[in-house]
Structures are given as C-alpha cells and as structure tokens.
C-alpha cells in the first residue's frame, strides 16, 4: 500500500515541462513577488497577470483550467486577511454585530481584501503549476543552484521523501486500531471521549518515537554509504538558449505589469 496522495507531479511532455527547473522556480517566485507588489485595485493589471498564468497553463499542455481547479484548496488561507475588512479606515459600507463587537466594513477595507484574495489566488496557481510540471527532486536541485542554504534544501528533500513513509505509518496505526475496535452484544462500545482522545494522543506519541528512531537509522544508513552533507544528483541541469529567452521575456512582462499597475 502506498500513500501517494501528496505527489502533485503530472507526467507530460510540454514546453513548460522541458524548461530548466531553475528558470521555473525563479519565474514562479518573481510572479508571486510581482503580484504582491501590485497596488490595491489594479484590476486591469490583475487581469493581465492572470493572462500570463493562463498562457503558462496553455504551454504546459495540462489544460487551461488545470490550476484553476486546484486553486480553491488554498482559498481558506486567504481568509486570514478577513480582518482588513474592518481595520482599514474609510467610508463605512455596512455594520454588523458579531459576538461582543460592532464591526464596520469600509470601502478601503473591502478593496484591500479583494485585492489580497486575488493576489494569493494568482500566486497559488503559479505555484501549483510549478509543482505539477517539475519533479520534486528537480525543484530541490534548482533551489540548491539558487544558493538556498543546503540545510534548508536537505530538510525539504527529506520532508518530501519521508512524508510518504510517515503517512503510511499513520495509515497502518489507524488500521490496527480499526481491527480491534470491536463491540460486545448488549454493551455500549467505543469508550468515553476522553479515553479515545488519550488513545489518539498515545498513537501520536508512538508515531513521534518511531519517526525519531527511524531518523537515526536513516542517518546511519546514509553515513554508511558515504554521506557528507551534500545530495548528489545524476542530472546536472543545463541552461539552454530557450531557457534564457523565456526568462528574459517573462521578467520583462512582469516589469511591464508593475509599470501598468502604477499608471
């Protein structure tokens, strides 16, 4: 049984898939930065930004709505920004009572909130496209080339590798519990909520202990095979002319976006 619900890579053949991972990582970060820097309410520029995203989607052969369909999962996180609705001074639009507060939504607040949701929605989609078109080891490798500290890239690489192992472990623990979750005739089964919570706590503790011991074993196995602190890879990435051209054009487009947003 393999828990591969986390693997977001979509095998395909396309311009975006072939692009050097470093270029993709840089452009994704640049796109996120560009969105973040656009002023509130720059609707036309947001739309242009979205066109860039759609264009990237089209080039990836995954379908125009590929990232759109997967982007809603991140929307709840944008709700963290909901407080700006009330906290920015401006013309009041409406007031309502919530618990013990009177909350007033202002026009400036609404403008900022909608802008933040759009920015994060666009940014998340580009990140989704990045992980869908780039193998995870390639992303990590790209980060290494981009001088991200190796301690961070190593942590990310291991997190990804052992996420699956841990998910499997959790799954087996749950199954073992399920296999013994029985009932006797005439008795109320399941135990008290407090007891069940204690069992779950114990299971979490067991998971931690096992992960901790596993990490020791893994590290020993790595040392035994000559690990010195650097991940080696067989496919050194090479930048081709097409990578440079894409990089330059995309960056230029984003600079234009910034200018357009400030007109």
């Amino acid at each position, binding site marked *: *049984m393999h828990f591969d619900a986390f693997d977001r890579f979509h095998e395909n053949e396309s311009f975006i898939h072939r692009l050097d991972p470093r270029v993709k990582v840089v452009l994704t970060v640049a796109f996120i930065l560009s969105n973040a820097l656009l002023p509130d309410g720059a609707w036309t520029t947001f739309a242009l930004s979205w066109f860039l995203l759609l264009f990237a989607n089209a080039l990836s052969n995954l379908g125009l709505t590929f990232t759109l369909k997967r982007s809603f999962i991140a929307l709840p996180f944008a709700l963290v920004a909901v407080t700006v609705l009330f906290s920015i001074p401006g013309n009041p639009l409406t007031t309502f009572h919530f618990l013990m507060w009177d909350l007033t939504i202002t026009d400036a607040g609404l403008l900022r909130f909608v802008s933040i949701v759009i920015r994060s929605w666009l940014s998340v989609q580009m990140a989704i496209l990045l992980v869908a078109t780039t193998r995870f080891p390639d992303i990590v490798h790209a980060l290494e080339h981009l001088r991200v500290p190796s301690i961070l890239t190593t942590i990310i690489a291991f997190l990804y590798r052992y996420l699956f192992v841990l998910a499997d472990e959790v799954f*087996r*623990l749950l*199954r*073992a*519990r*399920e*296999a*013994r*979750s*029985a*009932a*006797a*005739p005439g*008795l*109320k*089964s*399941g*135990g008290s909520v407090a*007891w069940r919570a204690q*069992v779950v706590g*114990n*299971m979490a*503790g*067991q998971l931690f*202990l*096992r992960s901790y*011991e596993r990490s020791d074993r893994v590290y020993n196995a790595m040392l035994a095979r000559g690990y010195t602190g650097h991940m080696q890879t067989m496919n050194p990435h090479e930048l081709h002319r097409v990578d440079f051209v894409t990089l330059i054009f995309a960056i230029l487009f984003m600079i234009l976006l910034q200018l357009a947003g400030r007109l």
Partner: protein
Amino acid sequence: MTNVLEVHDLHFSYHDHHPALRGVSFELCAGDKVALVGPNGAGKSTLMLHLNGILTGHSGDVMVGGNHLTRDNLPATRAMVGLVFQNPDDQLFSPTVFEDVAFGPLHMGLPKDEVIACVDSALNAVRMSNYRDRLSHHLSVGEKKRIAIATVLSMNPQILVLDEPSAGLDPRARRTLINLLRELPITMLVSTHDMRLVEELFPRTIVMDEGLVVADGKTKEILADEKFLNEHGLEKP
C-alpha cells in the same frame, strides 16, 4: 461440525485495478488450525484483511459465526475475529503493554474489573504476565509478537488470524511461538512462509497463488507434492 468462517467467491482489487483476489472460497470449522501459504503477492494478507472487514470485497461473501459480514455487524465481527498484523510495531500503538492489551476490551465497553481480568488472562496465555507495565517499543521482536497476539486474545475471539507470525524471529523465540500456537485452544488461520512450521503445526493447508486458492487439503499430501510446491513458488520443508 459448524463452520465458524466461510468465504465464498471473494473478489477484490486495489486502486490500481490490480486484482488481488479473484474468487476465493474456503471455510473453517471450529477448532481448525489451518496454514495459509503462497508466494509474496498471492493475496494472503489481502484475504486476511477481509476476514474482519478492514477491506470489503467487490463481490463475494464472508460469513463469520453464521452471519454475513455487513457494515452493521462489523464491530461484533471484530470481536470474533482477532487479526494480528505481520509487523508487531503496527499492532502496538499504546505506550505500555497493559494499555495495548486493554484497548480491545475497553473499546467493547467491558467493566473495569473484567478488562483487567481479560488482560491478565491474555498475558498469561502468551506467558508475558510480568511484562504488564513494560513499554512496548522497548521489547524485542519476539516479545512484541507475543504481546500482539495477547492484544487480540484479550477480546476473546473465536478465530485467530495471524499474518506471518514467525517472520524475523530467532530460533528460541520461534520455538516459544510454535508452542504457544499449539496450546491455544482456538480456531486459527495462519499465513506463513515457514514451511517447517506448517508441517509441524497445521493438519490442514490452504495454498494461494495469484489471488486464487490453488489447493486446500491435508498438509501432508500438499507438502509431499514437490512439483506442485515449486510451481507455486514454495519449497518442501
């Protein structure tokens, strides 16, 4: 004699559509001790997970104690069929031996003194009474295996289903386990690759290969047919 367990034409495939069970049928009488052998990937573990409803087949029927296994009687079935996983680390999820063995009875809602009695008799049955307050993850593999068996014995099951109980045990731990299995007065179905164990302990053997039961009969006769064993990736002990 009545059948405590009947499996009829059970089919199952995993998410990748690879068929794991392709029409498995057999029955167990009360008191039977049956070995389930077959190469890796034959479907033994998959079959075992069906016996107390962890997996449910796409078609076919599992009857435990004369009742069809359905969603409604799942909890009752789990009390009757004690499933012991291959890796005892999966089985033991509580910090101490006592808590783990007590999980089943506590979940069934038994009164406290009865729970303690169940735990004590289960630990007694596997001869681990003095391990009651030990931490599970500090035990040896052999000790963990015996505790894992105790965790289902404490539920007073009618059938014990064991997945590769002797894997990874040293000769002494294996011997202790064999004696334990011989003495337990309970119906059991044991999947194993340990052909000497099969020969020594089980009068009846079921052979599975590629999701099918390819033989079901007297252990002596099956083990005598060397050609048949080789065909199904097994070895004469």
